[in-house]
């Protein structure tokens, strides 16, 4: 198997989806141009033409409606945002329409739109260029929300998202773009709602999403040195959650640490924590810990980012307290 970067894996997922089905099309601001931000260029125009991949105005709200109107007619749009933050302009379209359309029209319409967005981090991206708020997408019924952490998942989840019949938020993380991994050449899907057990251990469950995985692995490695063995589980999607895998792990270890890139207050990490304690609270051997950014906005200064993003030492300190 070849190795691909996370970003190239996404690109290949899009490309193969477009090859598979000519009702798949892609649009976003500046995506036609070869030198897009973070090198996100798709370079797919030559293959598919400007009918199926095109640039749009900075009109995020109506451009979301564009995708919805196409999706209810059985096209499969992929709308690209360079930042999740900008999707705040579109939430009427997403939550008053897309996520409800199937239900509120009694099943008469489906809305298979993929909203692809990036979470920024670093180099002073700051308060409205770095936010991760997939919790709120997970909160509204009718949405699916996926957060790939590896190149393999990035491709497989992209394809699964495109061919899912529901609106899907596909949330990438900038810090993972250059990470490299094995990616099959073939067209394949990673089932949405299946967590990925990366490491197994009996002492502690580390569950989390997206760019938290590298941190979780580091933490696990560190703990292994002290003979503490962890389940390291990539939850992969914040809706649906893979409840079975979560419960199985925590039943076994009795100790849970949930990692998320989103804030914790009313976050997915709160949901995982509440879900687990409500189901098997009496089997827990210690209190659950949530590892997330604190309840403040994303600061620009690297000196502040250092304290804002969870780091290995702080996480280990918290974990030692429950061991």
């Amino acid at each position: 198997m070849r190795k691909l970067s996370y970003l190239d894996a996404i690109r290949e997922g899009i490309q193969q989806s477009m090859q598979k089905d000519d009702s798949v099309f892609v649009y976003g601001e500046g995506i036609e141009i070869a030198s897009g931000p973070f090198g996100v260029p798709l370079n797919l125009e030559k293959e598919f033409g400007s009918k199926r991949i095109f640039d749009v105005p900075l009109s995020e709200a109506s451009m979301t409606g564009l995708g919805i109107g196409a999706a209810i007619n059985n096209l499969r749009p992929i709308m690209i945002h360079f930042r999740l933050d900008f999707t705040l302009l579109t939430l009427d379209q997403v939550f008053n329409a897309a996520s409800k359309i199937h239900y509120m029209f009694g099943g008469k319409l489906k809305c298979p739109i993929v909203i692809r967005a990036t979470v920024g981090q670093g180099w002073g991206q700051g308060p409205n260029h770095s936010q991760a708020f997939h919790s709120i997408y997970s909160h509204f019924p009718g949405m699916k929300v996926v957060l790939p952490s590896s190149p393999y998942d990035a491709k497989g989840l992209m394809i699964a998202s495109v061919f899912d019949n529901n609106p899907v938020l596909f949330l990438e993380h900038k810090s993972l773009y250059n990470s490299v991994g094995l990616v099959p050449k073939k067209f394949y899907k990673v089932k949405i709602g299946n967590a990925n057990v990366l490491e197994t251990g009996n002492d502690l469950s580390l569950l989390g999403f997206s760019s938290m995985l590298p941190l979780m692995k580091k933490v696990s490695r560190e703990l292994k040195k002290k003979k503490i063995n962890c389940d390291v589980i990539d939850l992969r999607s914040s809706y649906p959650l893979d409840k079975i895998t979560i419960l199985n792990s925590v039943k076994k270890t009795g100790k849970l640490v949930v990692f998320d890139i989103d804030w914790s207050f009313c976050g997915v990490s709160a949901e995982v924590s509440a879900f687990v304690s409500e189901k098997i609270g009496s089997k827990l051997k210690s209190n659950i810990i949530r590892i997330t950014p604190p309840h403040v906005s994303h600061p620009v200064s690297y000196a502040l980012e250092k304290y804002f993003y969870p780091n290995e030492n702080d996480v280990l300190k918290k974990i030692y307290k429950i061991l």
Partner: protein
Amino acid sequence: MLSKKKIIDFYISVSKIRKSEEKLIELNPEQEMRCPHHYAIGQEVVAAGVCVNLNDKDQIFSSHRCHGHYIAKGGCLKSFMAELYNKVTGCTEGKGGSMHLIDTKKGMMGSHGVVGTNIPIALGASFYLKYKKKKNLSVVFFGDGGADQGVLYESLNFAALKKLPILFVCENNGFASFSHISSRHAQKDISLRVSNFGLKSFKLDGNNPVLFLNKIEKIISYIKKNNKPVFVEAKVNRFMAHCGQGEDIGPGLRSKNDLNKMRNSDPLVSLQKYLITKKLLNKENIKLIDEKIDFEIQAAVSYAKKSKLPGKKDLFKNVLA
């Protein structure tokens, strides 16, 4: 030139909307239709005039004031009534109610209760039509209140940019619920406002049925022929309250006198007069048409009343596709 058939179909449509709405008003005291009603009485000409020029593959999108559009597009009357009666046989199975009517077989692609939200969705439908090289167009109906929303201007630009087959129809009744247009618009001529967005825009009189029909026929064939968007502002009068059974008379709203004037220039009546004067129909014909409509409406009401309410299981149906 308007064909005789089209004018008569147009009349049937106007009358069917009027009579359906009147039936809702009549049945209202039962308190069995438990959802807000936004009547189109007085404004029927626009829905009927547009839709009589469309076929089932043309798609329409509507707002909270959607009964007329649904009926004009040929939406199933039984599913309509059943929906208003909150029944599982309703067009959304009791999920969407009076503000979310749909009949995809007829190209009625759904109405939305949030003002303006459907405008870019209709844009997406027109994008689809062009993408799949269909010979159809998409139409979105909204009010002067809908014209307050920024997505309209974003959508006009995009429609013009991509040369999409879409008709934007702004039914300007001068009010957005309790706000008069003068407390919302600096410049009350909506068709003028949008005139430099790169698409044609027209102001039509929704109170002059035959003139409206004449012009809208030409506009729709222009869109189909040229694959280009058009904006139409239609001035209309709303006879009923914004929502429900009242008349919205009062300070800041309108006077009884003004309302009477509106009712005295009822487009339905002037259309009947025209049909008779032009000898397209006589009184007897009109009566027969109207009786047939009454009959159809009554059948729909009976169907709705006899239908079952949704059950607990239905609550969890269709959450994910």
